[in-house]
């Protein structure tokens, strides 16, 4: 795929792909690395149909994120960014951090569907399509995931 098109796709999808990867790395810098890696690999691909690009990018970035988490250097690091742990009295910021920690505490299978549905605004059907899963399975994962997210959030003291 030519550089110009990849540049356009980066403008459009880079945030989504980075955030998707973050759900596996817990680190923004690693997630950004994985997103860039995914776009680099996209350049090596044949031109692909528009609808297949985002699922491909998400899958590639998530695989990269999972691989990076298996790597030795990550095995002893704390997943959340320093920025998340910097002291603050801002109540809204504290609750955001608690919600982010709650999300990372969930089983992996819930994180990406919840992110795509809740944060990116995709419908259940679109989420199912992006992830290559069935409608009912995705609906069930999202429904259960929301409950677990709320529970984990409450465990954070909220």
């Amino acid at each position, binding site marked *: 795929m030519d550089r110009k098109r990849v*540049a356009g796709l*980066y403008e*459009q999808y880079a945030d989504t792909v980075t955030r998707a990867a973050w759900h596996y790395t817990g680190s923004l810098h690693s997630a950004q690395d994985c997103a860039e890696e995914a776009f680099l690999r996209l350049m090596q691909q044949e031109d692909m149909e528009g609808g297949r690009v985002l699922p491909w990018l998400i899958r590639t970035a998530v695989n990269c994120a999972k691989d990076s988490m298996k790597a030795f250097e990550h095995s002893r690091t704390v997943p959340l960014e320093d920025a998340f742990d910097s002291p603050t009295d801002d109540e809204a910021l504290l609750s955001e951090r608690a919600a982010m920690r709650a999300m990372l505490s969930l089983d992996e299978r819930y994180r990406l569907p919840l992110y795509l549905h*809740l944060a990116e605004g995709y419908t259940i059907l679109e989420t199912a399509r992006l992830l290559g899963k069935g409608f*009912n399975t995705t609906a069930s994962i999202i429904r259960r995931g929301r409950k677990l997210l709320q529970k*984990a959030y409450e465990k954070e003291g909220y």
Partner: protein
Amino acid sequence: MRRNNAVNSYISGIGRLSARDNPFADEDVTSPETEKENKPAAYVRPRFGAYIAAAVLAVCIGAGAVFAAGHLKKDETPADSILTLDSDPTLTVPGDISLTKTFPDAETAMEKYREAEKASHELLRYYDSAIASGKDSDVLKKSVSDMIYPYAEVCQAAVSFLEETNSSMSCYLLEVVKYEGEDTLSLYVINKTGKEIDLTGSGRAHRNQTGEKLCDLAFSQISLPPDELSVIKLPSDGITTDDFNVVLETLDGSTLSISAEPGIVIRALNRERISELTRKLSEK
């Protein structure tokens, strides 16, 4: 108030994360707007223009729905024949499938779940046949997808009701699905024992009426979390009837007995076909 904002806080927090500056950019970079024209709507984040387009689309869909309504007729066939597919392209819809999302008791919730699930499977079958026979007009697509979504919502509501309702039963069996091309039965159950059930992966199936043994069962070890919908996949070899009782062994030495009534087994389409149809239905 603070107890209910996990999702809002998460959305707000995740919105603070962003990608690095575009490393591929140069002065000729394709603008996102140009690129967007090549993408299907499902993958484009809605922006202001998209909301206007969606409003226009909604008006068109509304008009289509009114038109479709004129082509739909109530089912007057026996209850077991949910849909009629004949040479006439008119779609005969189930007349007595309730779309209620509130249930007085668990039995009603299970009954409505099964009705809705069965109807949506039948609609998928209908849609599949309609495509094969060249009847996939836009109106038909819209009509079918308009009916599948409400059914899915009934199922979701029933599952939520059953998960949250106290029960004297140890497990609810919602449905049994036999997918075409697979040699397993999928049992959709909600564990209401209040604790996790660990299944050893072995058990037996009997005929319900006579107690005659149908087969021994060997499957993967699984755990059923309490108050959640789980799927138990059993080898279907030997279970040739819709009327059976399975007794499954648990790690703590007890057994879990699940009975399927006649007619509960839904023979669904091939999984890949369902995914493909679901994808087509989403492209409206």
